[in-house]
């Protein structure tokens, strides 16, 4: 009988490893927790019942109906490309134009939809509103829009936190010079 040295064949090891690798490659889902963040207002019953009067010019009205048509400040608008600049002008008006906001703290973007408005359209408009604010913040912090959003996503870093407070103009009492006042109103019930 021939002497054999007991050895495990390892030529196929790479193949086995490749198979396993392919399996994990296919089943892997890269975490996708990205999107438009928003903080909802407090619960309806906790809010003060007294009516808060908001002056007409401090409110920027955006409305979407059940067929996704857009009204900006009461005017039917098809092209949304100018909306961002319009919003920036409204927020940073500081009382120059009497028809626009007195100051960014008072400025409110009111966003009203219908129950039949599609989510796609809603996101499209919300994206424009947030991009206007992000542009304003980014400019104040001296960075570009993409970098600003990175900063806002990672506040663990003290330098990021400093820029974040600078961009939003955080005052000593904790309030903001330019708060993102987006009011998403209860939808109307015409469609849907």
């Amino acid at each position, binding site marked *: 009988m021939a002497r054999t040295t007991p050895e495990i064949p390892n030529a196929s090891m790479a193949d086995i490893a*490749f198979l396993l690798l392919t399996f*994990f490659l296919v089943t892997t889902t890269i975490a996708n*927790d990205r999107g438009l*963040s928003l903080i*909802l*207002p407090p619960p309806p019953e906790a809010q003060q019942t007294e009516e808060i009067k908001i002056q007409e010019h401090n409110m920027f009205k955006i409305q979407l109906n059940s067929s996704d048509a857009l009204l900006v400040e009461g005017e039917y608008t098809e092209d949304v490309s100018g909306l961002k600049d319009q919003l920036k002008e409204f927020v940073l008006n500081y009382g120059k134009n009497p028809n626009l906001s007195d100051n960014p703290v008072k400025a409110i973007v009111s966003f009203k939809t219908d129950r039949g408005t599609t989510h796609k359209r809603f996101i499209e408009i919300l994206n424009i509103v947030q991009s206007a604010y992000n542009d304003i913040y980014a400019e104040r912090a001296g960075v570009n829009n993409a970098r600003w959003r990175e900063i806002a996503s990672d506040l663990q870093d003290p330098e990021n936190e400093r820029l974040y407070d600078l961009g939003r103009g955080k005052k000593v009492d904790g309030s903001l010079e330019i708060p993102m006042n987006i009011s998403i109103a209860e939808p109307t019930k015409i469609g849907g």
Partner: protein
Amino acid sequence: MSKFKKKTNVKQEIPTSSMPDVVFMLLFFFMVTTELRKTSIDVMQRIPEATQLRKLQRKSLVVDLYIGEPKKRDQGEDFKIQADDNFILPNEVLLWVSRKRDGLPEAERDLMTVSLKVDKETTRGIIADVETELRKANARRILYATMQQAEDKM
């Protein structure tokens, strides 16, 4: 006289003996980062696109809520809300949120974010109902899940 000898018998081969190690390294990377999906999603998930995305850092503080048309026709055509493995009604969101919140460490409960993974054809009605419930449950941090849209399209 030539100082430079002609090299004749030079083998031109890439050493492959370390290949299994390389592959194993990759394998371990994917094994560690992989997260097998716990639930199967039964509603349509055509996620809308946007440019102003924010990224959530702490995955453990995020709970997902899926909204859309059911994938299977026999489950009707009305929009449904899926939480974990089953469909729930808007008025059950409150209970679901408080159950989720109880599962988090006490100090971090206020930081919980509800990620709304909503199909783009869903109408605002049902989403607004969910938002109202979330406000009642005091889970006010929300995220509309979106995909990255190319910046120049705007």
